[in-house]
C-alpha cells in the first residue's frame, strides 16, 4: 500500500484514538504495539513474513467496509484504526469458537498449559461458553515423535503455518507440511520422516500452542514452577542470548532471548538441549586437601591457606617459573583477568594458558567483522565447514544473507587459492570472510588479497568455547598479555606446560575451571601425578579433582555471575541461574583469597572494586561494554 511513498517521512495514524508516528510501510500490528495497544495474533511472528491466515488480528480501519488483518496491512497516512469495537470483539469471539471446535482441550496434560496463546486469548477475548453441541471432535494423532527432540500433537495445532514458514524462511529445510483440506487439515513432518534439522528446538518456541513441544522438557515443569534468568548460551562462542529456566536449582530448559545482533531469536539444538551437562551430579562440593598423604575434607580457610602455602613453598624453592597456571575457556572475563594477573603478578610465572593446543599469531583484526554486519556484506566467503560446525546458528544468519537479502555466499574448502576466490567475488563492495580460528591465517591471507584487489574485506573468526574470545582478549595466554599486549618473556603453552611438568621442570600446577579441554588428554593425568603441588578449583569430579593436593569447589557457568565475550567481541552478562549445593565463595573470590594468601593486597582490591573496572582499565577496548556492546579495538592494535 505504502510502496510508492518510499520517502523516509513518518506517517501519522491513530489507533483507538491514540496518535502514533511510524515509518511508511510499517504493519498496522507494529503500529498498534508502538501505540501500546495489544493485538492478539497467531500466525504473525516478528521474524516471519506476514501471511494473514488465522484472522485473529482483525481490526477496524476507517473507510474500509471489512475488518483488516493488522498483521498484514500496512499503514497509510491518516489511517484510523480501531481494535476494541463491537465488530472486532465479535470476530475474535467467533474465531476462538472455531479454533476450539475441534481442539482437544488437553490443557492439564499439555506442556504448553500456562504459557499457551490459545488459553490466554480464550481467557481474554473468548466468548466464555460453548454454543456448539458437537460432542464428537475430529481426531488426529497424538504424541507423535517427530524426532528425538520434538513431539507433535496434531489435534492441538491451530494451523497457523508458523512452523512451515519457519522451515521455509529461516532454515530453508522444509521438513514440516500442512496436509489435506478444511477440517481435515493436519500438520505433519514430510511423509512422517524424522526431522533432521539442527534447529528443531525453535519449533516449540514459535508454535503458539502445544502442538509442537520439546521432548527434553516433556512434563518437566509448569511455567509457574520456573525461575527465569537472562544469560548467555554456554555451548559455543557465538554468544546466543538465552533465558535459563530453572526448577529447584536444576536447569529445566533454555529458551531463546532475542538479540537481533547475535542470535536473531534462534538457537541451535546443540546449545538449547546441551544444558543437562550442567545438571550432572558429579560435583566437587567440599574443599579437600592432602594431609599427610591422605586426602580429607578441610575448611575453606584451611584449604586456601594450604594452597597458598604450598605454592609459596614451591616458588621459594624453585622460583616462580616452576609454577604453571591453567584456566578454562568457560571462565568469565573477570575470572580470566584475575587468573592471569594472579599468575603473572602474584606468583610471577609466565606459564599461563586456558587451552591445550597452542594459539599463536592472533590479533583483534581477525575478529573485525560483526555477526550482524554479515548482512551488510555484498558477498560472504565461508572457509570450510568448521565455522558452522562450531557455531551452528551461524548457518541461519548466512541463510538470511543469501535468501532474504540475496547476497552471494561462497563456501570454499579449507585449502583454497586466494586469487581464485577473489576472481569469483563481485567487482566492488564489502566482502565478509568467515573462518574458524584454526583457519585464521588463510582468512587473513584472503583478506589481504581481496584488499589489494580493491575490495573492502573484513574477517569474522569463530572461536571454540563460550569465552575463548574473552580469555584471548584478557591475556589468559602465555604469549600475549591483556589486550594482546606483547610480553617480554613468553611462557609455555598448555601442552608444553604439561610436558614440562612431566619432565619435572614444573613443580606446581594451579588449575582453575572445568578443565574440559585437558581432561581427555593423557598428558594432563601424567602431569598432575608428577607435580608436587596441584591446586585445583573445579566444579566437576574428574582427573584434576582426583589428583589435586588442594581441591576447592568451583561453580558451573550457570552458577556464576560475570561477563563473557562472544566471538565477535560482544561483552555479555551471564547471571546466576541456579545456586550451587554449597555456600563456599565463588571462583572469583577464591582467586582473590588465594592472591591474599600469596601475600598480594591486590587480592583485596580486586574484590573491593568491581573487577570489570579493573579489567577495563587494563584493556581499554572493554570500557563500558559490559551491557552487551562489542569491545572497540582500535584498528591495527
Amino acid at each position, binding site marked *: 500500500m505504502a510502496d510508492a511513498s518510499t520517502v523516509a517521512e513518518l506517517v501519522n495514524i491513530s489507533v483507538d484514538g491514540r496518535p502514533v508516528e511510524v515509518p511508511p510501510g510499517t504493519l498496522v500490528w507494529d503500529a498498534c504495539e508502538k501505540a501500546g495497544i495489544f493485538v492478539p495474533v497467531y500466525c504473525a511472528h516478528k521474524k516471519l513474513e506476514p501471511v494473514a491466515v488465522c484472522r485473529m488480528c482483525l481490526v477496524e480501519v476507517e473507510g474500509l467496509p471489512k475488518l483488516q488483518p493488522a498483521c498484514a496491512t500496512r499503514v497509510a497516512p491518516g489511517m484510523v484504526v480501531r481494535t476494541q469495537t463491537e465488530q472486532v470483539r465479535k470476530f475474535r469471539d467467533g474465531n476462538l469458537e472455531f479454533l476450539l471446535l475441534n481442539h482437544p482441550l488437553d*490443557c*492439564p*496434560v499439555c506442556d504448553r*498449559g*500456562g504459557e499457551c496463546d490459545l488459553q490466554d486469548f480464550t481467557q481474554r477475548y473468548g466468548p466464555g461458553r460453548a454454543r456448539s453441541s458437537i460432542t464428537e471432535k475430529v481426531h488426529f494423532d*497424538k*504424541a507423535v515423535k517427530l524426532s528425538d527432540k520434538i513431539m507433535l500433537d496434531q489435534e492441538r495445532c491451530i494451523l497457523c503455518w508458523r512452523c512451515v514458514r519457519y522451515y521455509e524462511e529461516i532454515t530453508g529445510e522444509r521438513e514440516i507440511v500442512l496436509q489435506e483440506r478444511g477440517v481435515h487439515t493436519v500438520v505433519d513432518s514430510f511423509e512422517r520422516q524424522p526431522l533432521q534439522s539442527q534447529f528443531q528446538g525453535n519449533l516449540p518456541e514459535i508454535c503458539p500452542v502445544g502442538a509442537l513441544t520439546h521432548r527434553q522438557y*516433556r*512434563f*518437566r515443569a*509448569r511455567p*509457574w*514452577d520456573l525461575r527465569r534468568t537472562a544469560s548467555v548460551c554456554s555451548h559455543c562462542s557465538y554468544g546466543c542470548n538465552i533465558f535459563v529456566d530453572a526448577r529447584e536449582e536444576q536447569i529445566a530448559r533454555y529458551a531463546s532471548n532475542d538479540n537481533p545482533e547475535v542470535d536473531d531469536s534462534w538457537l541451535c539444538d546443540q546449545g538449547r538441549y546441551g544444558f543437562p551437562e550442567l545438571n550432572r551430579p558429579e560435583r566437587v562440593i567440599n574443599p579437600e586437601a592432602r594431609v599427610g598423604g591422605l586426602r580429607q575434607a578441610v575448611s575453606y580457610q584451611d584449604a586456601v591457606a594450604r594452597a597458598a602455602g604450598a605454592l609459596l613453598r614451591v616458588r621459594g624453592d624453585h622460583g616462580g617459573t616452576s609454577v604453571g597456571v591453567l584456566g578454562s575457556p568457560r571462565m568469565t572475563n573477570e575470572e580470566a583477568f584475575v587468573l592471569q594477573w594472579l599468575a603473572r603478578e602474584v606468583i610471577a610465572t609466565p606459564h599461563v594458558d586456558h587451552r591445550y593446543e597452542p594459539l599463536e599469531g592472533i590479533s583483534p583484526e581477525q575478529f573485525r567483522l560483526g555477526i550482524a554486519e554479515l548482512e551488510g556484506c555484498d558477498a560472504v566467503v565461508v572457509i570450510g565447514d568448521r565455522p558452522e560446525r562450531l557455531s551452528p546458528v551461524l548457518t541461519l544468519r548466512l541463510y538470511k544473507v543469501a535468501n532474504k537479502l540475496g547476497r552471494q555466499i561462497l563456501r570454499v574448502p579449507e585449502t583454497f587459492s586466494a586469487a581464485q576466490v577473489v576472481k569469483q567475488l563481485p567487482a566492488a563492495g564489502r566482502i565478509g570472510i568467515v573462518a574458524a580460528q584454526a583457519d585464521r591465517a588463510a582468512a587473513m591471507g584472503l583478506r589481504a588479497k581481496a584488499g589489494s584487489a580493491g575490495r573492502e574485506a573484513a574477517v569474522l573468526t569463530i572461536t571454540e568455547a563460550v569465552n575463548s574470545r574473552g580469555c584471548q582478549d584478557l591475556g589468559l595466554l602465555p604469549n600475549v598479555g591483556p589486550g594482546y599486549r606483547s610480553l617480554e618473556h613468553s611462557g609455555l603453552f598448555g601442552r608444553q606446560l604439561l610436558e614440562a611438568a612431566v619432565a619435572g621442570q614444573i613443580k606446581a600446577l594451579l588449575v582453575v575451571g572445568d578443565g574440559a579441554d585437558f581432561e581427555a588428554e593423557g598428558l594432563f593425568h601424567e602431569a598432575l601425578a608428577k607435580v608436587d603441588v596441584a591446586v585445583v578449583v573445579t566444579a566437576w569430579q574428574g582427573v584434576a579433582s582426583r589428583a589435586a593436593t588442594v581441591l576447592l569447589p568451583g561453580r558451573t557457568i550457570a552458577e556464576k555471575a560475570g561477563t563473557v565475550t562472544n566471538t565477535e567481541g560482544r561483552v555479555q552478562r551471564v547471571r546466576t541461574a541456579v545456586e550451587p549445593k554449597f555456600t563456599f565463595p565463588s571462583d572469583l573470590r577464591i582467586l582473590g583469597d588465594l592472591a591474599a594468601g600469596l601475600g598480594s593486597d591486590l587480592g583485596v582490591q580486586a574484590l573491593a572494586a568491581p573487577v570489570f573496572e579493573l579489567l577495563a582499565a587494563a584493556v581499554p577496548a572493554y570500557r563500558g561494554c559490559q551491557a552487551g556492546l562489542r569491545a572497540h579495538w582500535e584498528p591495527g592494535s
Partner: protein
Amino acid sequence: MFREMVGGLRITLREMMTKPITIQYPEEQRPVPPRHRGRHILHRYDNGLEKCIGCELCAGACPVGCIYVQAAENDPQHPVSPGERYAVRYEINLMRCIYCGYCAEACPTEAITLGPRLDLADYKRERLVATKDDLLEAWPGFHPMAQGVAEGRGAPAPQTSPLGAGSSHQGPAGSAPGLRPPIPGSRGSGGGAAPI
C-alpha cells in the same frame, strides 16, 4: 445466696444424670461430617489406575504453595494413569496446608479430595510432609504401582501407610510398621490393611 446455690446445684445434678459427651479419644472416635476437609486422598479409578495426571493445577491453585508435583511420561505398557502424563512425585506439606480445598476444586480429574482424617499430629515435622504413598488410595489387587517393585520401592499392595491411605468414614486406617511407630493404644492397635 441460698437460692443461687440451689440453682447451681440443680444444674450440676441434672448434668450428672445425662450422658457425657466426652469420648475416650483416640480409642473412640466420632464420625466426621461427610464434607469434612481433612487430610487429602489421591483417588484411583476402578481399574486401579491413578486419577492424578500430574498436571500441577492443584499446586497452582494452592494459596499457600504446599503441594509439590513432579510429572513424568507414562510408559504405555505399564501406565500409572490414563493418558500420557502421571505424577511421579506428589507431596503435600500438611503443616502448611490450610485445608481450604482449592486443590480439590482445581483438579480436572477429581483425583484429589480432602478426606475425613483430622488426627494429624506427629513428633517429627518430616513426617507431616505427606508423600504419594501416604496419600494414594489403597489398591488391593494387581495394579500399575507394581512398577515400584521393580524399582525397589516395596510391595505394591496393599498400600497402607501411617498417614492412612484410603481413610474411610468407618474408622482410621492401619499403620504400616517401620514408617511411623503406632501411637500406643490407638487405632485398633497393630495396624493392618486399610479398609477400602
